[in-house]
Structure formats: structure tokens, C-alpha cells
């Protein structure tokens, strides 16, 4: 079970470009987020898993907004709470989820993922061509950036920028997804 110190260390290494640390950070965050959302969306584990995924994309694309002068968990839960409120506003199920502050320290991370309802692949298809190709090739087909650049005729930095923009677009699309 990760604590503030470990999570923070992974985040800072991830910010420096350490892939393994970033993966550890996201995995641990996912477990914390799962507990957070499940406690607030009781009886709707698919909704909770949707929110876990949506928030993970938010944590990733907005990771430069973390201010190391403050706790990483405060940053993480502020974003989680924001995504939850946004979700509830969209779903108009406000009454089901109390938004009171509560003790994060008592929560046990939940590593058991449910199947999310939202189809990330379908959303990916709605991205502009360049962004979709870049994300699919580098992130899903695990090809290198230079390989992708060579086969698409884009420059390497163009590929990187497209991935970054694509993930941001993805996050926006996730936020717009209408869920009843």
C-alpha cells in the first residue's frame, strides 16, 4: 500500500521522464481512485471505473500542474473530486453521492478493476487522424516514436505533440460522454 512519500517519489520521477515510475504512480493512483469513487457511487461500479479511467487521463495530461510544495494526495484528490462533481453534474445523480470531506488515511486502495463501460477505443476513433494514428502506433502498437515518424512521414516532435494533444482531446471527449 503506497503512501504519500512513495506516490510523490514516483510522480516526481515520472515528471522527469521515468516510465516505470510513472506507471507505478498511475497504478497506485488507480487503486486509490477506485476506492474513492466506489465509496461515493455505491452500487454503480461501472460508473466508478469510468471515472477512474477519466481521472487517470486527467492526472496524466495535467501532471505538470502538480506543485511539489504540497502533498501529492491533496493534488490527486482535488482532481478526483473535481471529476466526480463534473460527472454528477452531467448525470444529475447528485443525491446519491455525499461530497463531504473524509479521512483519506483510512482508505485501502482497491486493485481489483471492474470493466469500465466507456469504450476508450470508440473515443479514440473520434480523434483527428494525426492524433489517432500517433497514439495508436506509439501507445497501443508499441512502436517507437522514430518508427512512427518514419512510416507516417511526420517529424518526431510532430508525433510527440500529436500524442500529447490527442490525450488532451481524449480527456475532453471523456468529459463530454453522456452517461445516464
Amino acid at each position, binding site marked *: 500500500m503506497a503512501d504519500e512519500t512513495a506516490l510523490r517519489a514516483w510522480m516526481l520521477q*515520472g*515528471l*522527469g*521522464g*521515468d*516510465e516505470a515510475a*510513472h*506507471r507505478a504512480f*498511475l*497504478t497506485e493512483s*488507480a487503486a486509490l481512485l477506485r476506492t474513492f469513487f466506489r465509496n461515493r457511487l455505491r452500487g454503480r461500479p461501472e460508473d466508478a*471505473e469510468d471515472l*477512474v*479511467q477519466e481521472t*487517470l*487521463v*486527467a492526472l*496524466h495530461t*495535467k*501532471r*505538470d*500542474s*502538480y*506543485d511539489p510544495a*504540497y*502533498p501529492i*494526495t*491533496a*493534488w*490527486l*484528490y*482535488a*482532481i478526483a*473530486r*473535481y471529476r466526480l462533481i*463534473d460527472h454528477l453534474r452531467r448525470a444529475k445523480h447528485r443525491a446519491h453521492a455525499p461530497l463531504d470531506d473524509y479521512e483519506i488515511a483510512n482508505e485501502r486502495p482497491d486493485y481489483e*478493476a471492474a*470493466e*469500465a463501460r466507456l*469504450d*476508450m*477505443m470508440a473515443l479514440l476513433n473520434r480523434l483527428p487522424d494525426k492524433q489517432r494514428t500517433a*497514439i495508436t502506433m*506509439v*501507445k*497501443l502498437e*508499441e512502436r*517507437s*516514436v522514430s518508427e512512427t515518424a518514419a512510416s507516417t512521414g511526420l517529424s518526431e516532435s510532430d508525433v*510527440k505533440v500529436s500524442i500529447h494533444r490527442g*490525450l488532451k482531446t481524449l*480527456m*475532453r471527449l471523456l*468529459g463530454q460522454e453522456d452517461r445516464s
Partner: protein
Amino acid sequence: MKTDRLIDMLAKGVEPAQKPAWKRRFALTIAAGLCVAIAMIVIGAGVRTDIGAALAPVLMKAGFAAAAAAIVLPLTLQLMRPGRPLGGRILAIGAFVALAALIAFVALMGADPAERMRLLMGGSFPWCIIFIPLLATPTAAGLLWLMRAFAPTRLTMTGAAIGAFSGGVGAMAYALYCPVDSVAFVTIWYVLAIAVCAALGAIIGARLLRW
């Protein structure tokens, strides 16, 4: 998609994060907002004709407006990133408003009772309540745009802070035109006009700042 797969996708080939050069962009946005507001007042309403003789009160009013903006700035900056405590930053704004009210009270009590109404109302409709929000719009628009690169999670409060800060900047420009030099008028009506900006900012921010 399984969450594990998503994590793989996000982590794969992650690059070092770029540190946004926000300080410079922030300063440029504010400077541009102030310049546009000054241009608006110079072209639209005209600088007051007695500017030479009235330089002291003009500077006093612009200084008061700048102080109001400065007192809101720390809160605005703190709200740019998620999960940072606001602490005394809201308290400071409350103290500023209380101080302004106290100054107005003292100024009015020290004046001839027959004069008090004129000193408080400025002798006509307090136009600043309309003008200052108008002059705040260039700064507010720039800051709302700039916020897109950040991650505010308390949208209503962020919008209010941007509105109030921009109101202070707008009031600095308005001081070039404002024909009323009464201390009570300035401390009461400028603060009210900035409060209007904060309210508008809260409403607009809650919509526009979503990410």
C-alpha cells in the same frame, strides 16, 4: 478498455514534463489587459480634462485599485493548480474590504453632515459600477484563456478571483477618467464594482473553466 491497458498506454514512452513558463505569460496578459483598458478609456470616454491639476487624486485612486488587485492576486495564483490550501488568502481580501469600509466611514463622519450624501454618491449615478466591469473584460478574457493551460478544480472561486483581480486592473484604467475624488465614493463604489466583476467572473468561470 481495461484500466491496466489504459495505464500502459499512458505510461508508454512518457517524456519529461515541460515546466510551463507561466510567470512571463501571466505578466504579459496582465500588462496587455491594462493597456487595452487604458486605450478603451482614452478613446471611448476621454481622460479627465483636469488631469494635470488632479494628478494626486488620480494616482491615489489608481493606487487603491492596484492594491485591490494585488490583494486578490495570491488567491488567483493559488487556485491555478489543484489541491493547494487557500489559507489566509481569502481572509486578506476580507480584511481589505473591511479596511475600505472603515476608511469610507471615517471620511464620511469627518465631513459636514449636509455634504455626506454627495460625498458618498459622487453627485450623480456611480458610473464606475458599469465602467469598471467593462474595463475588466480584456484582462479577464486573457486570464481565463491562460487558465486553460492549468488545472483549476474550484471553478466558481477561480472565476470570482479572476473577475475581482481583473476588476482591480480595470479600475486602475478607470481612475484616468473618474471625475469623483471623494474618498468615501472611491472606497465604497470601486469595491462594489470589483465585487460585481467577481460575481460575473464566478458565473462565467464555472462554465468556461471546465476541462
